[in-house]
């Protein structure tokens, strides 16, 4: 690879790559396979092998391009085919057995396999030959999942080959870096980022430009640029998708930040549980170094910047910036009080700037398109877009990027497609295990930093978990608390001991041993943890409990007073009953029951023997007719009757 010694070199290379790509495309079709962690888990590896086999069987000279996650997790594995002069066509939920038919029909015969085709991307690679749109096939922006999305951080995810710097450059990659280091002063970049209103996408929502300015103004050298890629929330994978799907956007963003604040070294702190992301980052760094887009004299300027990867070792608290830096230094990942802020005294007590993956990934776009473009999206105080990992009891699970200010309802019902299996929506948890849950009445809350906080949840890093009627909110809160308290570093008293005591109380309630005083106690501990803990982990640990107690107090009271878990989750606090009118005697439940508690002859309503039932819920899950229902335990009902 030649070294790029000027912005002109970069521009020439871009044109050159596009030209080669165009030439190649006239002779060979492009096949894109979604090869993110989620795609691979869904079987993309086997799909890709089958494609290769089929291509060689037919002696087709096609280019198979592995791409990152396009966000439609529910539709993985995804295979896209693009023929010369035609739009890119997406096939979803592709099984290896379907590959021969797709290849024969689409590549050999040149027809879209309509029964399997999912959508088309006519605007993809705008610099390729003009394409005629396929008829009767929706474009991505016409799909409900995509129509409300605007992709900035995820712009290239699922579109380009993350292991090819050329692919990134062909999509205007590193143009922002070139503009920044050769055409803008440090102050101009900081001003641009400040004006854009970009707030840290890690969760706290601090203004990125202001953070950069602090670090720029701080005395002392060397300075460090650090990327927090220690995404540890259960149910969140936004950062992973960027790292796996578009690593160069992170590299470019960090290099721009390095130039702006005057740093020459950068660290990417990535959790070790993301091996694919680490591998792709390493590859991306070495490619950028070969092009001279990292290292000394970037693009022929006097600016030098090197990037290193540091692997985390399994500690959620290292997502806190001071703990993260302690971990890079090789110490226990314990946070320390701020001030001093990292901008003044960070890594090895030198000025350091820590941002989330998405914040850096958005930076090049802001530099390229200007702050006004970014500000034009979102709300006044939360500009731009937000990335969410939409999971839980929702039809279209996946990764989405939406303009700030969109409502939760739009995300859940329009993008997410609502709740599957005709179940009822119960709550949506934002902000991961340190966030909070919101009930149906809050669904019209706009999604932005301030509104979510005011409503009782948080923006967090981007986990969004939707739960339906079958989720017990007490147990849900207990689950997050178990996670958060196990991840407490143990340094400060409120978090170390408060989390444990809170967990004990919640466990007691889910076991039917709670009292109404416990609810006061929860409130008391929670408020004090929030006020007194050293870092955000301790301050936010009680978040899910407080939110669920605020919005679902009646569920807590049912557990305590009636010894009843209305969702049928907490063992021993409910029983199952078969509704005679609904049951058609299909026998599915009898087969599923592990304890032989269900009896009944075919086509007659079945009965559950409560003495044998162990409340495992297997029957409830298999019944298609909603004939099995959750009721309080018989003993409890009798007890209440006798007391009355």
């Amino acid at each position, binding site marked *: 690879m030649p070294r790029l010694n000027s912005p002109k070199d970069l521009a020439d290379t871009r044109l050159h790559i596009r030209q080669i790509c165009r030439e190649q495309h006239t002779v060979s079709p492009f096949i894109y396979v979604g090869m993110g962690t989620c795609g691979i888990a869904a079987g993309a590896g086997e799909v890709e092998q089958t494609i290769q086999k089929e291509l060689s069987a037919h002696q087709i000279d096609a280019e198979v391009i592995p791409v990152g996650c396009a966000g439609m997790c529910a539709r993985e594995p995804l295979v896209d085919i693009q023929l010369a002069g035609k739009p890119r066509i997406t096939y979803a939920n592709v099984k290896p057995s379907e590959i021969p038919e797709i290849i024969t029909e689409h590549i050999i015969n040149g027809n879209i396999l309509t029964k399997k085709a999912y959508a088309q991307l006519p605007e993809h690679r705008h610099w390729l030959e003009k394409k005629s749109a396929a008829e009767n096939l929706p474009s991505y922006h016409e799909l409900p999942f995509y129509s409300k999305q605007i992709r900035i951080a995820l712009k290239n995810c699922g579109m380009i080959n993350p292991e090819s710097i050329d692919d990134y450059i062909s999509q205007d990659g590193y143009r922002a870096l070139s503009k920044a280091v050769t055409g803008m002063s440090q102050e101009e970049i900081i001003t641009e980022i400040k004006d854009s209103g970009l707030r840290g996408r890690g969760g706290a929502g601090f203004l990125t430009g202001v953070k950069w300015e602090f670090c720029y103004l701080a005395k002392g050298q060397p300075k460090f640029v650090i990327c927090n890629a220690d995404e540890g929330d259960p149910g969140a994978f936004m950062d992973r998708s960027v790292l796996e799907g578009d690593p160069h956007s992170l590299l470019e963003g960090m290099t721009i930040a390095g130039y702006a604040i005057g740093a020459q070294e950068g660290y990417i702190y990535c959790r*070790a549980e993301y091996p694919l992301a680490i591998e792709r980052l390493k590859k991306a760094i070495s490619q950028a170094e070969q092009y001279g887009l990292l290292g000394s004299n970037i693009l022929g300027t006097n600016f030098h910047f090197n990037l290193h990867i*540091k*692997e*985390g*070792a*399994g*500690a959620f608290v290292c997502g806190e910036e001071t703990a993260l830096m302690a*971990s*890079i*230094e*090789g*110490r*226990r*990942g314990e946070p320390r009080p701020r001030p001093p802020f990292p901008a003044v005294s960070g890594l*090895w007590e030198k000025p350091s700037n820590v941002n989330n993956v998405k914040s850096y990934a958005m930076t090049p776009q802001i530099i390229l398109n200007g702050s006004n473009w970014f500000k034009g999206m979102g709300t006044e105080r939360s500009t731009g877009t937000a990335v969410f990992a939409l999971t839980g009891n929702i039809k279209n699970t996946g990764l989405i990027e939406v303009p700030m200010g969109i409502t939760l309802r739009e995300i859940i019902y329009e993008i997410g497609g609502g709740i599957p299996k005709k179940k009822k929506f119960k709550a949506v948890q934002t902000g991961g295990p340190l966030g909070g849950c919101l009930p149906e009445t809050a669904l019209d809350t706009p999604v932005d930093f301030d509104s979510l906080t005011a409503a009782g949840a948080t923006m967090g890093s981007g986990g969004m978990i939707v739960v339906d009627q079958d989720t017990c909110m007490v147990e849900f809160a207990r689950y997050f608390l178990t996670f958060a308290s196990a991840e407490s*570093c143990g340094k400060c008293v409120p978090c170390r001991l408060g989390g444990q005591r809170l967990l004990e109380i919640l466990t007691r309630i889910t076991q039917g041993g709670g009292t109404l005083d416990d609810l006061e106690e929860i409130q008391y501990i929670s408020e004090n943890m929030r006020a007194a803990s050293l870092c955000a982990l301790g301050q936010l640990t009680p978040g899910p409990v407080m939110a669920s107690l605020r919005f679902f107090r009646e569920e807590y009271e049912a557990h305590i007073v009636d010894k009843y878990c209305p969702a049928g989750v907490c*063992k021993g606090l409910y029983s199952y009953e078969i509704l005679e009118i609904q049951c058609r005697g299909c026998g599915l439940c009898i087969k*599923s029951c*592990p*304890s032989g508690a269900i009896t009944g002859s075919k086509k007659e309503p079945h009965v559950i023997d409560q003495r044998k039932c*162990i*409340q*495992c*819920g*297997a029957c409830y*899950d*298999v019944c298609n007719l909603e004939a099995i229902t959750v009721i309080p335990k018989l003993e409890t009902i009798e007890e209440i009757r006798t007391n009355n």
Partner: protein
Amino acid sequence: MRKNNPRDNPFAEETIDLKHLEKILDEFKGQKGAIIPVLQRAQYVYGYLPKEVLQAISRKTRVPLTRLYGVATFYAQFRLARRGRHIIRVCDGTACHVRGAPQSIEAIGKAFQIEPGGTTPDYKYTLEIVYCIGSCGLAPMAVVNEKVHANIEPDKIVDELKKLD
């Protein structure tokens, strides 16, 4: 630093070859704050972090042993006890319990001479008991090296496990 006492671990000399450390330590020589990558690499080589290895790292890098232990016990990734090559997790949640998980646990224990939570002396198997994997319809069940075994029976699961290398 006190000398390593070989009596602390009867397997020390047979199983732990400190030679492998040299390469790791050379690679990170002079790097600031390289404790965690060194421990990660050492664990990759040895499968866990034996006391001897930590002592050797401490001696050679002059990082106090106490600090190494503080770090190694802080991060979830690090293991201080050796585990078997095959990790057997048997569910003993309510559904599995009533469907006969205890019998399977007992059979596995007898066949390989291990207690729940324990590891066989040849470090082939580690037996762990878990509580509900959320697949009660398949009870009783076990997960062996990430592979799910549904409706297990004492004899069959033992046979299945014996087939592993």
